[in-house]
């Protein structure tokens, strides 16, 4: 749960908050749990939704920060900057590359990001991802392919930007 959250929101404190909220929500609404899907799927679904909510809030905050920065240069700064995120589970020799990867992941659309992270970070099968996202396996396959293509483009831009 925490591992998924930190990959999505790229911030330790937010990920902990999300883990807490997910745990509490599951504890409080366990009676509402639909046994057609597995408990694990349900937990992941709640986690992903909470993470996406947090990212949306983060984006709103960024927009607001931009507007305020037009008026007050000092106050417009964001408290948490996720552009230099280092996932704590990444091997030491790959940290630099992973940093670029997570930076590129941030720019993906929600569905592509979800499919890619669940497949790459959580190493889930496409069937499991399809259950969590409530879409078909084919849709997941397409989302992952599009996410990889989009990431490739973004990374090429990052590479070019660094060479300049």
């Amino acid at each position, binding site marked *: 749960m925490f591992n998924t959250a930190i990959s999505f929101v790229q911030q330790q404190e937010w990920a902990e908050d999300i883990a*807490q909220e997910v745990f509490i929500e599951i504890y409080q609404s366990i009676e509402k749990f639909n046994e057609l899907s597995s408990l694990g799927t349900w937990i992941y679904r709640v986690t992903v939704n909470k993470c996406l909510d947090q990212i949306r809030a983060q984006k709103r905050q960024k927009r607001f920060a931009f507007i305020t920065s037009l008026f007050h240069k000092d106050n417009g700064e964001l408290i948490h900057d996720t552009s230099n995120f280092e996932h704590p589970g990444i091997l030491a020799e790959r940290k630099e590359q992973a940093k670029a990867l997570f930076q590129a992941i941030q720019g993906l659309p929600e569905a592509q990001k979800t499919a890619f992270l669940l497949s790459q970070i959580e190493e889930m099968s496409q069937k499991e991802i399809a259950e969590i996202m409530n879409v078909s396996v084919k849709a997941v396959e397409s989302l992952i392919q599009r996410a990889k293509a989009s990431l490739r483009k973004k990374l090429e831009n990052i590479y070019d930007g660094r060479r300049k």
Partner: protein
Amino acid sequence: MNKSSDKEKWVNEVLSSTEGMKKAEANPFLYEKIIYKLQHRETVQDIPAKVLLPKWILAGVVILLLNSLVLVKEMNRGKNIRNTDTQGMGMLSELGNQTTYNY
């Protein structure tokens, strides 16, 4: 040619940088934090209706009393104003009469 192959190599390295990664572990106190939050929420949320009902009734009675008090005060003030108005009118007419007599 060399530049583009370097770029492609780097992009591939980045895309495969999550291989062999371990699961991120949360703060060891996260579990305690969750338990505390759950207990705290329960104490806030689980106040039984039996305990809350008399308080709500009392609050309702107090609001009704305050409203009626204000109403009674307003009514009394209305009466007083009417009384003072009529008294004032009487005095004025008396004054008027007196001035007529003086001329």
